[in-house]
């Protein structure tokens, strides 16, 4: 009897968890998707004082920032993971790096944001810019990329490396020609999931990139306003725009769709790579 009750209870809990997810996605899409899918909204000019504004520059900023950050964080993270997994022996340096990475991954994004503001924006004189934001997000997402990459590198059978080294390849040749290609599905998944996190980030960007722009930024040294940060702008100062609730709802829906596409696309992409490589698992 108690056993039956326990089973029902846990089943109900799982159902609630799933319902919470469905509720979140459902409400956001119901309230905003109708607005978000209109080209005049998604690619349109924003308005500061009157109705009917779009989020074109914000949409562009999000894509730009995500791309810029990914281009920095993925090579750095893969390089660092490669060092930890293939080129180092467990020593002081490796322990230091692991400790640093672990600490970094526990820090709040708003703390990254204000560090980015004093260091990149002010100290390095980058100003509010895509570059300052991308550098901040690079530091913030480095631990994740490193962890995912190292896991996928370590999952590769030792026999591949042995075969390569026994054919006279050096460590780097082995890493480049055998280890990295075999780890590619895992690394890709990690990279795309990280893109989702970058696109959804707001707290670290308010004081590094900016929250409102009228025109799409062209240079990485220009200020920008990614969608997530712009929703914050609408929440705090949006009351100046008569239809700010509509704009924010539409922007939230557009952001959610982008993030979901990245999250769900990550696995599919990895699967496609695996299939192409003929890895059968």
């Amino acid at each position, binding site marked *: 009897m108690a056993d039956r009750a326990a089973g029902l209870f846990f089943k109900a809990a799982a159902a609630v968890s799933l319902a919470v997810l469905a509720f979140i996605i459902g409400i956001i899409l119901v309230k905003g998707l109708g607005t978000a899918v209109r080209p005049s909204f998604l690619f349109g000019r924003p308005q500061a004082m009157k109705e009917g504004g779009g989020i074109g520059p914000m949409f562009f900023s999000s894509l730009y920032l995500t791309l810029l950050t990914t281009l920095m964080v993925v090579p750095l993270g893969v390089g660092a993971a490669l060092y930890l997994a293939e080129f180092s*022996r467990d020593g002081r340096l490796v322990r230091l790096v692991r400790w640093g990475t672990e600490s970094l991954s526990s820090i709040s994004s708003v703390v990254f944001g204000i560090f980015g503001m004093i260091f990149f924006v002010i100290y390095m004189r980058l100003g509010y810019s895509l570059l300052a934001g991308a550098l901040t997000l690079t530091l913030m997402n480095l631990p994740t990329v490193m962890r995912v990459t190292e896991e996928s590198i370590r999952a590769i*059978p030792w*026999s*591949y*490396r*042995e*075969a*390569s*080294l*026994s*054919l*006279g*390849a*050096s460590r780097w*040749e082995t890493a480049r*020609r*055998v280890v990295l*290609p*075999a780890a590619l599905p895992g690394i890709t998944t990690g990279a795309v999931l990280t893109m989702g996190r970058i696109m959804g980030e707001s707290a670290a960007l308010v004081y590094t990139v900016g929250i409102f722009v009228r025109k799409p930024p062209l240079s990485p040294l220009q200020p920008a306003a990614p969608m997530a940060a712009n929703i914050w702008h609408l929440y705090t100062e949006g009351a100046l725009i008569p239809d700010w609730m509509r704009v924010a709802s539409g922007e939230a829906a557009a952001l959610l769709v982008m993030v979901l596409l990245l999250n769900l696309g990550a696995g599919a992409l990895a699967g496609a790579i695996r299939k192409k*490589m*003929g*890895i*059968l698992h």
Partner: protein
Amino acid sequence: MPCEADEEEVRGVKVSREALLEVMEGESDLPPDDEMEGEKDLAQGNKMELSGLSLSYGGKKVLEDISMPIPARSITAVIGPSGCGKSSLLRCLNRMNELVDGARVEGKVYLDGEDVYAPGFDVVGLRRRVGMVFQKPNPFPKSVYENVAYGPRLYGVRQKKVLDRIVEESLRRAALWDEVKDKLGSSALALSGGQQQRLCIARVLAVQPEVILLDEPCSALDPISTQRIEDLLHELKEMYTIVIVTHNMQQAARVSDFTAFITIEEQGSPGRLVEFGETEEVFTNPRKKKTEDYITGRFG
């Protein structure tokens, strides 16, 4: 010297291989014999030589004072009970044991008279000259073609035509060409276990090694695949010096010209060489009591 008895055996196996192929495929396609004939008359000698070789992992001795020759263009089998360090011995020959933390080698290993453990000796070059085939087939998760082309590419071969030729020739020598020539572009992981192991042999042949080390290459294979690999070894020894580690004494007796027997006194003590000689001699008329006991199955 491997003499008449061995030639007989070579022919014997070849006959059985042809019969087998006829059963399996209806026809046989042996690589042209004359291709290898020309090299047969080259001087025989010792391709490699071990002198007082000891190996320890993290302070624990695994092998002690091994001295033996590895005659050129013949097959040397290393046999012994499991845990006697025969695989470790093999890895000393191409310095693959260096990849294990805390491995230490004493003594000398000569390749063409040069000590491979001498300071400044080019390890990468050594592994090019001394190829290795592992216990479990370990093709890369790449296409059949890319697996074989891997080594040549490392050494800077870029022209497609040259690579094509190397791939075909290596696969032919590994007696795999006919089975894979229509699927060179598909994944090597889709091949059967026996085909994968022959692919690994082709991959080694593609870098034109002088010595090929095989670490129990058939232990993960079915009897038919095993037979094909053994046939292949017979053909390859015309051109290469081969060392094979095996726990299967019938296999050692069937394929090898020379046999080294290594054993341990008790669990945890280092492996020592008990006897080295022509396979015929070692199996029919061993000089040491221990060898006889092992071969007749009366060991420990």
